[in-house]
Each structure stands twice: as C-alpha cells, then as structure tokens.
C-alpha cells in the first residue's frame, strides 16, 4: 500500500519538487526514513507518530517506509512532517493519496501545524506547477504573496486530512498583492551637506557601481549608504521571488517584497556568515542574502583581510558555490557593495580641524587592509568630510526626487547606443599619461562616465562626463 505526496525543497536560490513516498507493509511495527534526510527530518518519525495519535488517527501497526525523492537532493528542516503524516494516512487508505497537492508544515505533538520557512517555497512551486498547496496558517500569507500561487491554509493535521478527504474547497487564501512599499524612514533629505557624496550615491544607484565612502566619523557615511537602498528601482517579480527564497533558505521569513534587500553584516561576522556555508544543508551567507540588493560593509578596514578576499569571487561571478560532501549548491550573489571606513584607526587623518592621534605606521597598515583586488572592483571612492555647522541646513533633495531621476536614467540606459566622443577618449589617454588615473582606472572611468552620461540622458559620453568620473574616484 503506497502513497505519494508532493512537497518542496529549497536548493540554492530555487525550489525543487520533492515526492514524499510512503509504503505501509506487513504487520510488524517499524518506521524507516530514507532519501538523504538531515537530523531534523529524521526526528519527524516521532513527531508524526505523536501527532497522528493526538489527532485521533491510528498509526498503522505495520512496517512504514518513507522515502524522500529525489534521494540525491539534500533535505533539511521540519517541513516534511505534515506530508509524511498525510502520506501515512493515505497509504493506510484513510484518505486519498494527495499526489497533486503540495504540502509543507511542521507538526506539533498535539497535532497542530506549525509555521514553516518553506511556506514561500510552497507558494512558488504552486505557481510554477499550477497545483494547490497546503501550508500552515501562519505561513499562508507569505505563500499567497507569490503571484499565481493557490494557497490553502490549515491549522491542524486533522483539518488537513479532512480537506483532502472532502476534496479542496473554494476557501482558498486570497492572493495577497504586495503594495510597492518603499522605505520612507531613511530619506536623503536627512543628510546635511555632502553634495559630492550625494552625487556619488545617485550615480551608484543608476549604474550599480560599488561605492566606498571614507572620512572622519560623523560625516554621514553610514547615513548615505543606508539611503542608497531607497534610490534603487524596485525588484522585478522574478527577483523578488529569488530574494524571498534565499532568505527562506537562511531561515528568514521575508516573503515577497519589492524593496531591495539591505544587508549590513558586522565586521566580526565569520567567513561562513559572509559567503555562506554551514554543516549539512548549505545555508546562504550575507553575499547571497544581499543578492539583487545592497551589501553594506561598515568599518570596512576592520574586516579581516582574509574575509574581504573571499568576497572577490562572489562579486566577480555573481554566484557562490558551496561544496559539501556529495553535493554542491550554488547561491546567487550579485550584490551591490557599499562600504564605509575611517581613514585611520582614530578617524581624523586628513581632517581640517582635529589632529590625528595615530602613528603613521598604524595609518598605513589600516589603509592597506582596504586595498588590492577588492578596491579594484570599487568604481566610486568618495571622501565624506565633516560637515561645517553652516551647512547644517536642510534644503537637500528628498529621496523621492532623486529616485525619479535614477529611474529615468536606468530606463534610458537599457535602450541606448554606447558611444563615446573622440575628445572624451583623448581626455582619458591624457589623464593616463599625466598619472591622474592608472591603466586599471581607465575601464572604471569609462564605466562611471557612461553612467554620468545616462543621468544626463546623453547617448554619447562627453569630456565633461569623463572628467567628473575621474574626480569621483579619488585616492583612498
């Protein structure tokens, strides 16, 4: 007596269908679980047994074999409790085999269904396969936020069994359309002064250039970085789904949201926390959680050099591969890097007023931490000086105004020829000859100049665009 129930596994930034196969055999009590389960899945045995008993159903006094297929797929977490329990009932002919329903949910011992990080994954699979899904009530709104998902919310194992026995009714959870909520708490208008840094922020948002702010404490480096997120165009539907799934894979419930993720790991974060890892089923790191969004590294020079070096490959490839024994999982990691740092340990090297307390050797050591390959990938480097009190007035543009300009430029950018005037090319060569930029800096200057031209809605990069681009890549 067999049954098969559909469930879902999160793999990398995507979902894969999983078949929960249950076989109930000859009369002799045993319970076997196969198909690469992790510890949490293996413990499902006991929860399922207890929950079935609490729900008034009898656990068959027979050999029960559960197989999670495809076996090669790593499976973790507690979301297979419910499909296993329903599978046991179906194999015992208590209910029809829920072959065409996607089921996720953790079981409490008393038969209630608990929320699951896979709620959203079930929604995504439901929309993709055009099948209904049963999810715990507390995860239902997340699953329903996936466009096209058919979601049934359930509270208990008994209710789920009843639903399947009677056939799914029309009481589907209403598809929840997510309003385009943009972060309004952090507005650019709050930043006093710093026109140059604001300009760099706008250019970074338009061209997705990695950006480094440096300068003494109190200039507003962190404020500016946080406000960059609010200037970015909203996520597309497929991006929002991918971002939500990666968060779910890390055990975070984000669901579908249109604002871009903003991740700011502390400089004491481990390497695994930054790029992903973990024992057993691989867990995405900050670089993947920041996929399609911003990765903000505050106090960049305080991050261990070895950690910064591990960011290079994800930055370059837009994906991290985490290899484990017998499996390797790829998480997308196309993040937009914004970093901030003091110029020296005390923060006041090069300040107009306040003297620096550091010994010269300390300053150069500190600076060297932010150098080499990572710095090469940062297009915009801008000093954020301390603000004079006279500048402490608020006539600055709001995020809404800048966001509109960025949106227009991004739109223009997607559909224009890539031209550069001869004079502009010559200016780059002149700058190279006079040592203002390095050979490496040529491409960077061209990239930034291109974005500056886009903001001016110019098809051709001009000399002025190039000259401005050079200034916005100051020395670190």
């Amino acid at each position, binding site marked *: 007596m067999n049954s098969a129930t559909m469930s879902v596994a999160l793999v990398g930034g995507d979902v894969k269908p999983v078949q929960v196969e249950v076989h109930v055999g000859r009369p002799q009590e045993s319970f076997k679980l196969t198909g690469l389960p992790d510890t949490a899945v293996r413990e499902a045995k006991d929860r399922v047994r207890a929950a079935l008993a609490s729900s008034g159903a009898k656990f068959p006094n027979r050999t029960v074999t559960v197989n999670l297929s495809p076996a090669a797929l790593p499976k973790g977490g507690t979301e297979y409790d419910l499909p296993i329990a329903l599978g046991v009932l179906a194999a015992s002919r208590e209910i029809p085999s829920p072959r065409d329903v996607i089921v996720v949910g953790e079981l409490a011992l008393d038969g209630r269904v608990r929320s699951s990080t896979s709620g959203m994954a079930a929604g995504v699979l439901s929309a993709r396969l055009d099948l209904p899904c049963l999810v715990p009530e507390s995860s239902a709104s997340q699953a329903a936020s996936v466009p096209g998902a058919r979601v049934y919310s359930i509270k208990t194992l008994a209710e789920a069994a009843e639903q399947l026995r009677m056939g799914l009714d029309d009481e589907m959870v209403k598809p929840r359309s997510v309003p385009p909520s943009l972060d309004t708490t952090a507005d650019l208008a709050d930043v006093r002064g710093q026109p*140059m840094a604001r300009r760099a922020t706008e250019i970074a948002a338009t061209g997705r250039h990695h950006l480094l702010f440096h300068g003494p404490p109190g200039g507003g480096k962190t404020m500016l970085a946080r406000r960059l997120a609010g200037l970015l165009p909203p996520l597309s539907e497929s991006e929002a789904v991918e971002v939500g799934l990666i968060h779910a894979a890390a055990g975070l419930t984000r669901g579908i949201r249109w604002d871009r993720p903003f991740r700011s790991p502390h400089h004491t974060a481990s390497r695994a926390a930054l790029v992903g890892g973990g024992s057993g089923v691989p867990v995405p790191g900050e670089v993947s959680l920041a996929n399609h969004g911003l990765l903000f590294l505050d106090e960049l020079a305080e991050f261990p050099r070895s950690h910064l070096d591990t960011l290079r490959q994800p930055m370059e490839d837009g994906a991290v591969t985490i290899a484990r024994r017998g499996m390797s999982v790829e998480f997308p990691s196309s993040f937009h890097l914004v970093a901030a740092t003091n110029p020296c340990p005390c923060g006041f090297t090069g300040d107009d007023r306040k003297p620096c307390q550091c010994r010269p050797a300390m300053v150069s050591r500190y600076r060297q931490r932010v150098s080499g390959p990572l710095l090469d990938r940062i297009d915009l480097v801008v000093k*954020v000086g301390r603000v004079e009190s006279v500048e402490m007035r608020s006539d600055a543009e709001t995020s809404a105004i800048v966001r509109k300009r960025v949106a227009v430029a991004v739109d223009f950018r997607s559909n224009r020829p890539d031209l550069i005037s001869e004079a502009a090319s010559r200016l780059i060569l*002149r700058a190279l000859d006079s040592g203002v930029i390095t050979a490496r800096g040529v491409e960077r200057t061209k990239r930034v100049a291109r974005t500056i031209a886009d903001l001016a809605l110019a098809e051709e990069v001009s000399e*002025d665009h190039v000259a*401005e681009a*050079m200034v916005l890549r100051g020395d670190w």
Partner: protein
Amino acid sequence: MTTPHMVRAGTASYPEGLLDLEDPPDLYLIGDLAAAPGVAVVGTRRCTRYGIDLAERFGRVIAGAGWTVVSGLARGIDAAAHRGCLSVSGHAVGVLGSGVDVCYPAENRPIYDGILESGGAIVSEYSPGTPPDRWRFPARNRIIAAMSTAVVVVEAARTGGALITARLGAEIGRPVFVVPGDVDRPASEGCNLLIRDGANPVLGANDLIEGLGLIIGPPQQAASASTVDLPQSGLTVDELTTHWSLSLPETLARVGRLEIEGLVRMSGDRVIPG
C-alpha cells in the same frame, strides 16, 4: 599621395637633418613630411609589456606636444610608439628598410595605413619594391636618427638596431634620451649601457617632454591655462560650486580637467592648486 616619389639630397623639400650624414641618400617618399621637429622613438623588437606601454605613452605625449614621431615601423617598441602617436591623430614618419610600398612586417599594415591617413609619411632610401632584407635595416637606422632632433630609446638589448640608432644619433649630435631599466633584464641592458656612456635618463612622460622642450623649444600645445584662482590652502568641492557658481556636475568636470592639466590635485575632498 599613395604613389611614391623621390626627393633628391640637397633639394628644397629634402629633410635638412639628413644633410648631417656623411652620405645623405636620395629618399623615396609616400605622404607628407611635416615641418614639425621629429623625435625618434626606438627600441627592441623583443620588448616587454612595460616597454610597449611606455612607448605608446611616449608616442602620445610627443604627438600631443605637436612634434613628429619618427620610428622604424618594426615590431615591438617601434610599432607601439607609432600606435601611441596615431591614437591622438599625431604626425608620424615611418622609415623602412624595404621599398616604401612594402609594408614589413605585414601585421603592421594598420599602422602603415594609419600614418598616411593622419597626414604622416613613409620614407626609405630603397627604390619601391625592394624586399625587406635583414642587412638593410641597420642602414635605415641612420636615417631615423638624422631625421630627428632627438632620439628616445625605450628598451634596447646589448646588441641591436636601437643601440645603433642611438650611437649614430650621438655621432651626429642628436641628444639621446634613454629609459633606465632593471640591471638584469636583457631588454634594458642596452639602455643602461647608453646611460653609463652619458645619455640622458628619462624619468617619465612629463620628464621626457620637459627634456625635449629644452632642446626643441616649448611644446606647441602648452597647457591652456597656467593658474587657477584658488586659495593656496584649497577649497572643498562643495565650496568650489559656490566659488565658481557652477552646478555640482560642472564643478566636478572642471576639477577633473584641471587635475589632468596638473593645475590642481585632490586631497580627500579638498582641491588644492599645483
């Protein structure tokens, strides 16, 4: 323009510098010889990446100063110097060891054509159609040296054409500028030897232009403005927008240009003159 014609020694259009040679040869010529003073940029064919970058840069700055880049259109340094010159549409003269209508090596055809397109000239003492024979190359080096006001050697081995050009140049009174190199790098051995023998070491593109300027006279296209109205202690970019009454992008663009001209430099967010 693309048909070769002959210029006899001693005629009005004959390059004056060649008369310094003991045996001024008749020249075959395609294109135009400019009146602008020529600077020879020569070096080994077996050069390093560093040498190529430097030769290109020298070609650019010499052309940028309004002078003619003279070289031998050979592989390596010669080609790089020509390329640099052409990248800013400068005037170049290629002196061949074959007939003027024979482009050798063939891979330098784009440079050959480029020189003519931007108004330069290809010259040779050999009649059109003469094949490129090895033994002819050292002889053309004396023409490169004599047609130029100064000779710049970027990379040269202990033996080879570049060294010959430099020595011939020195014999007829042409100042020789040489890029110093690592003492154990074969491509720099000849250069270092020349410096030991009294040639002028070149310490960079600006240094070269300065040195050449002392001999040839100041570059034609000198920096447009020589001063900026800025306090010595500098201003922040933000203060400059008020100072110049320009928009921020305009201010940044202006700062960028001045920086390239060497008139200002950035120190953090401050713009400092000089």
